[in-house]
């Protein structure tokens, strides 16, 4: 898979999966439509942020990720989409570099930065005679240098817990859209 090709062994990460009784072709299209208010923890945040920033939450989450600096690093049609970005753990309001492709992400080496890649992976899988798709939401994050990597490790327990809840909620929202009876 593309994720394994790009992330180093030292990257921290997690993967969350959910089986859906639909063909892979339905999944990517629907995945891109999920709105922020379909994710409970984001919905809560929106209640606070919306009065101050009315535009927040008006676009699907996937679109907001692209707006936030994630770029598509690679795809395997109907199997995997890989998104990636470079950022800083500290100084979050500082302008951040935008990397356009996998090579740029690989080559980026400014100390203090971290690289994050997200993969949406699909695998055809039959369960109890029903053809479906195993959808996996996987994340890898690593520091450009040793200092950034140490910071990542310190922050990881919180990030891991938050990321797990977020990924699970996204997959549940996807399930709700694709299997209305579930």
């Amino acid at each position, binding site marked *: 898979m593309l994720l394994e*090709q790009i992330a180093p062994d030292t990257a921290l990460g997690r993967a969350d999966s959910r089986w859906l009784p639909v*063909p*892979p*072709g339905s999944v*990517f*299209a629907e995945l*891109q439509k999920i709105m922020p208010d379909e994710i409970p923890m984001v919905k809560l945040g929106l209640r606070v942020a919306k009065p101050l920033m009315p535009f927040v939450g008006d*676009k*699907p989450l*996937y*679109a*907001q*990720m*692209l*707006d936030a600096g994630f*770029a*598509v690093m*690679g*795809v*395997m*049609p*109907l*199997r*995997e*989409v890989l998104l990636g970005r470079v950022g800083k753990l500290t100084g979050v309001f500082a302008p951040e570099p*935008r990397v*356009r*492709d*996998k*090579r740029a992400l690989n080559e980026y080496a400014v100390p203090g930065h971290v690289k994050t890649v997200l993969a949406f992976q699909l695998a*055809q899988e039959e369960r109890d005679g029903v053809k479906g798709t195993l959808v996996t939401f996987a994340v890898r994050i690593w520091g450009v240098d040793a200092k950034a990597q140490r910071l990542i490790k310190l922050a990881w327990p919180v990030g891991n817990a938050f990321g797990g809840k977020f990924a699970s909620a996204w997959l549940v929202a996807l399930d709700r859209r694709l299997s209305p009876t579930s």
Partner: protein
Amino acid sequence: MITDALRAAIGAANVIEDAAEREYYSWDLSQEPLQVAEIVVRPGSAEELAAVVRIAHEQGIPVVPRGGGISYTQGFEPSVAETVLIDTTRLKTIEINAEDSVVIADAGVTWEELYLATSAEGVRTPYFGPLSGRFATVGGTLSQNSLFYGSGLYGTSADITTGLEVAGVDGKVLRTGSWAHRNGSPFSRYYGPDLTSLFLGDTGALGVKTRAALKLIPLPMANQAVSFAYDTFEQAYAALHEAAKLEIAAELFIFDPANHAIYRKLGFSFLEGVEWSLHFTVEGIDDAIVDASVDILRGIGTRPGGGGREIDPSLPLAMRADPFGGGLRGFVGSEGHVRLPVHGVFPFSKVPAAQRGVVDLIARNQDVIDRLDLRITFLTAITRGYCVFEPVVWWPDSIGPYRARHAPEDAVARFGSVPPNLEARAAGTGLRREIALLMSSLGGTHLQVGKWYPYRDSLEPATYETVAAVKHAFDPRRLVNPGSLGL
């Protein structure tokens, strides 16, 4: 009487006489319906399909083959009401022979089904489908010919075909290429005269395809894209033309500002302020090969004086991620417009003239376009060795039975009950025809000829007489898709 014979041959459940169902199966997306078939049949095997053709022929009733139904040139619309329409979508067998690099697919297999089945075995067809591949079938696509995914490297659907199996009017099944050898298999298109070509792009006029043999390649494990923004179509096209000749990109296409507006709503905000965008997708066995090609394309796209600047390549990659979802987006516009493409196939040198001609045509019709809320967008795409220039005409109208069944639920909920807008429809279809004639006057040819493009009038008489003679040899009573190709 024919109904009884058909029921006996393929089962009563697969013989459809309900009026609404027959209408759904008989009309394509063109908004220019012809007749409604008297009977729709859904054979479940090549043998059943051959039996249907034989029974209809014995009783002197025309047959029309239909694939996924997502076409817009009346290719499967019956020209006479007394027609047996053959829905091929129950024919679903796929036989993958990775060792010989060939796959045999039933006519009713969709390109998405074929891609999923082959990619699970680590292979894929070189051209791997049209944007509408969630619905478009192998049989329908080979009858119409088409391009997009992989076409920059490998050409059209016709170019990857090594053999066909076709049911003739007498019920006999004809095979082509090395597949026709008594002890053979479909590894090569060529064994004596190239009979395969006769049936590619015939829009179902010469026989009914039951199975096709297509080439296979190893699944490319690396891919990347690179995109550029330009102020004018001419600048974007100059770069596209230069890159196309190298044959190193799998997909090459230009989008216009109206397409950008659609994609900005989907999150591609970097298209804000971009007039014309040029996109290349590159694939290969590893990153080193892909990166080298991307560097060459980057050099072309940003050549000094060429007017190009590099932009985020997320758009072509997102299209590849869900390659066959594009057909869905094309059904109904966000404001309830139906969208109908009209294209010309041109040598590279003629495309700028075609684009200027269409822009002038639009300017001459601007009053009507504004008054009736018509819109026109452009897609320019490359297949190996030449270019397809495709304006898309949009107008507000009722969405018709095909869109009502297959468009996204939210679009159907919003626009499913919109009444026909006959004035806008007349203007929209008229503009499409004017564009088609303009393209023909510039020497443009067409894929998906069907019963809509001016094939007969555009051909030299001696050539058309030869095509008619071939039709007569296969179908002397003109009972296979009469009217297709003007025959």
